[in-house]
């Protein structure tokens, strides 16, 4: 089963995930790039610096002293009407933390690439989703790519979505550190002219403009703050429908489309394993192997993490058993997993009684072997056949005790 039809007739570019992002930023004709280097994000901004130096991209490249400044400068640029971009990973995102809320609260349209990486301590430069998950409540739209083509496409979709007047929120596009960022795979690059036609620059009604002064970043005292926050919450909710519209327009332009939540092999399955990010493909492989052994397990792929897609509960409530594979630990929370918390809440609100098993995997870059993915799929199958109890705590795949 094809996740997306990448290789059709046309020859594709061999690109790392980071370079795919840089090409997308170039093709969107971004005006201001403001970033601070951090592993594994660095090659995105290196490539963009090359584009700016060679004149391939007419943009201001701001060299800032920290990620806090990188995002702050991007906000300023975007408030003045420019199309702004930044990228970061892990500790960089953590240092941006307070500014993340400011970007979404000020309703700043922009795109940030998050090359996911584990958070310290202990120091770890490898991949997991602890940075992505810990930023899910900052008011940003979060799109999570599963391959480098999606990383390219989501940047383009991201600008269109972010700049819609009914949305006006920043978009974070996640790609997995190393597993995508440093992996070469085929990517369909689009004609920059066509991309720019898809994401035309429009003059926004209100920007920082000396000719027509306005104030951004104002005080919201108890008499006013609440209303702005409700506006923001409603806009993030609207972003779901807006995404579907943008995505369908994207598919008319470029022939590829991505559902916020996609189920593969759902029809005859006894249970669904929900995943997101780069190892979606590894789990798909494992699901296909298990199905050949007669284990009817399906795969649910989350590509939109915020706003959390309403169809997740609608689809999943049809199954008695759900598995959730999360590459981050949500310390001390009800389920121990960010994804499980969301899925369980949405199922409960739907009135469903599906039982959830959480699988934590790939923490701190622990390699995910095919047998790890198979272990998860087989374990979930045994649960669905009632050969095993639903564990109350997450199953930590591959940890040593």
């Amino acid at each position, binding site marked *: 089963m094809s996740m997306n039809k990448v290789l059709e007739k046309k020859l594709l570019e061999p690109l790392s995930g980071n370079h795919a992002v840089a090409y997308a930023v170039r093709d969107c004709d971004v005006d201001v790039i403001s970033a601070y280097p951090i592993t594994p994000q660095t090659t995105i901004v290196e490539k963009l610096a090359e584009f700016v130096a060679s004149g391939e991209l007419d943009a201001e490249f701001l060299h800032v002293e920290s990620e806090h400044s990188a995002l702050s400068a991007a906000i300023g640029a975007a408030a003045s009407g420019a199309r702004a971009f930044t990228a970061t990973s892990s500790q960089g995102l953590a240092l941006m933390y307070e500014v993340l809320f400011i970007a979404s609260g*000020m309703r700043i349209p922009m795109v940030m690439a998050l090359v996911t990486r584990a958070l310290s301590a202990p120091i770890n430069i490898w991949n997991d989703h602890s940075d992505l998950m810990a930023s899910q409540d900052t008011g940003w739209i979060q799109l999570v790519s599963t391959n480098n083509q999606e990383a390219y496409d989501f940047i383009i979709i991201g600008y269109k979505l972010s700049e819609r007047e009914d949305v*006006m929120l920043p978009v974070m596009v996640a790609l997995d550190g190393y597993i995508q960022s440093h992996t070469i795979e085929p990517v369909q690059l689009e004609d920059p002219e066509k991309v720019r036609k898809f994401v035309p620059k429009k003059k926004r009604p*209100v920007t920082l403009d000396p000719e027509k002064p*306005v104030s*951004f*970043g104002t005080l919201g005292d108890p008499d*006013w703050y609440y*209303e702005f926050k409700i506006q923001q919450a*409603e806009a993030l909710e609207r972003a779901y429908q807006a995404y579907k519209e943008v995505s369908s327009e994207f598919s008319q332009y470029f022939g590829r489309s991505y559902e916020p939540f996609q189920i593969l092999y759902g029809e005859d399955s006894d249970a669904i394993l929900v995943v997101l990010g780069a190892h979606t493909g590894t789990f798909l492989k494992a699901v296909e192997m298990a199905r050949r052994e007669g284990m009817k397990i399906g795969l649910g792929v989350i590509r939109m993490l915020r706003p959390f897609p309403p169809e997740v509960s609608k689809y999943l409530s049809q199954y008695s058993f759900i598995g959730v594979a999360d590459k981050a630990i949500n310390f001390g929370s009800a389920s121990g997993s960010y994804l499980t918390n969301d899925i369980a809440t949405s199922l409960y609100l739907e009135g469903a009684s599906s039982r959830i098993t959480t699988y934590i995997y790939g923490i701190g870059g622990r390699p995910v072997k095919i047998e790890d993915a198979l272990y998860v799929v087989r374990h979930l199958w045994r649960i669905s056949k009632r050969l095993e109890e639903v564990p109350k705590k997450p199953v930590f795949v591959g940890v040593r005790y």
Partner: protein
Amino acid sequence: MKKPGVKDLYIGAVIINPPTSLTNKTGSWRVIRPVIDQDRCIRCRICWAYCPDAAILELDQPYEAGGKKYSITYVVNYDYCKGCGICAAECPVKAIKMIPEVEKL
């Protein structure tokens, strides 16, 4: 009158019709008020520059004092002056005095 709500306000707390602060007359916050001694004032502009509320006004109003002629006069805009006293503290010739508001009554 109903205050603007979720559906009325411009997003992101952006103020699109500045200067809205003019409607907020902060002069009522004042406990002590600055009074400028025009004879002593040397028109150095320091109070005007230091005032955090831009409540010192520079008027095109000639004034003669101690044989000197000035083309401008500084006055306090009591609608917005909060009485912080920075002008009095900064004045190099001590031409500004802070007087308790109660004396006015």
